[in-house]
């Protein structure tokens, strides 16, 4: 008797585990199919570009302030901290290199991506989730308007377009911040600051790779945001938890992708 009971308990345990794994994988597959469907139905978003421009305004332009201000401060902190460390080794002229490389390669795309996820990604999820909760999406389907083509795809493309521009602005602003602190405040030689920076920052190796990184982050963040919004439970609680999931998942995705991209991009040359 007790043996049968134990076996039943064990069986239920495995059933629960299996159900959890299947649900996760199914959701991943759904996200992938959703991505494919969205790409296939992007025609409207690109033909009627006005739809996308509107979304660029909400995702990109409205994120400008936070991106510019954070970029400036990150650059200023880099300038201060970098100077502290570099001057111990008597190479404070390399401050420009330190600030520019760390911003262009890593901090620009990553921090701008994190800010973008929490500023624009969460807004996208909440908007689409609320549209679903208030049955606007169902209404569109009733009118034979494809909500993915009309609502989701423009937001996705707006995010993909905005993200590299925001990351570039972040890096440029950060370098300006580093310049302000390093050259104007501390008094590192201005010529050395810029010339050493120019000598070691490579257009293809560093800047182009930074742009590629930020584009990948843009795709990941907006994909997660539109998917979570579209997949949200159509209740107030569902929308709020979907918004949270967007920020958490896309932040983790950015950091994981960043590691992979860095490993791919920046180790090839030096390892040989």
């Amino acid at each position, binding site marked *: 008797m007790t043996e049968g009971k134990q076996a039943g308990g064990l069986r239920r345990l495995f059933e629960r585990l299996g159900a959890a794994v299947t649900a996760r994988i199914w959701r991943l597959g759904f996200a992938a199919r959703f991505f494919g469907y969205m790409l296939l139905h992007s025609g409207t978003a690109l033909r009627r570009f006005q739809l996308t421009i509107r979304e660029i*305004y909400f995702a990109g*332009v409205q994120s400008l302030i936070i991106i510019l201000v954070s970029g400036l401060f990150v650059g200023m902190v880099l300038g201060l901290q970098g100077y502290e460390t570099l001057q111990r080794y008597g190479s404070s002229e390399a401050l420009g290199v330190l600030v520019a490389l760390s911003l262009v390669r890593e901090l620009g795309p990553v921090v701008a991506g994190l800010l973008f996820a929490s500023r624009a990604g969460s807004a996208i999820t909440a908007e689409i989730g609320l549209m679903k909760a208030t049955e606007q999406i169902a209404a569109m389907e009733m009118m034979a308007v494809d909500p993915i083509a009309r609502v989701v795809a423009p937001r996705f493309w707006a995010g993909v377009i905005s993200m590299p521009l925001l990351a570039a602005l972040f890096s440029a602003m950060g*370098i300006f911040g580093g310049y302000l602190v390093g050259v104007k405040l501390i008094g590192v030689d201005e010529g050395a600051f810029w010339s050493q920076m*120019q000598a070691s920052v490579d*257009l293809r190796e560093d800047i182009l790779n930074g742009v590629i990184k930020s584009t990948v982050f843009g795709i990941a963040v907006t994909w997660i945001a539109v998917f979570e919004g579209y997949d949200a439970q159509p209740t107030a609680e569902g929308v709020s938890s979907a918004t949270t999931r967007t920020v958490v998942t896309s932040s983790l995705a950015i950091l994981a992708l960043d590691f992979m991209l860095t490993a791919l991009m920046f180790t090839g040359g030096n390892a040989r």
Partner: protein
Amino acid sequence: MNRATIDAWVGVFVAAGFAALLFLALKVGNLATFSSAQTYQVQAKFANIGGLKIRAPIKSAGVVVGRVSEVRFDNESYEALVTLNLDTQYQFPRDTAAKILTSGLLGEQYIGLEAGGDGVMLKQDDRLRLTQSAVVLENLISQFLFSKAAEDKDAKEKK
């Protein structure tokens, strides 16, 4: 918010974004050194390249004239085979000497070229005959110690 205002703001945003990219490319990355100019390759063998890396600069009289494009180990001579990518606008005589030098005390290593007196210029896939390896600090120190010890020994024998 009406459509024209949104358009204007998006226009400003996109223009600012591209301006930032341009700033990164020109002011930070220095587009000028990113030359798609014609290059020619010559090779040089070194007994020891020290810490020379791919893309290290090649300088002549302090001016960057090219970059290292490949570093390989030559199985036959047991030496390092370095391929130098030189800009075609800089031509060097065939008996040019290549040295591995260090910028500053602990700085990065680069190849210094010293032009010779030959009338014939280097061509694609030529080999530089005169090379000087990197200075390895450990060897230098051990040489110094040995010569010091030898000196002491000589001094004692003379007494």
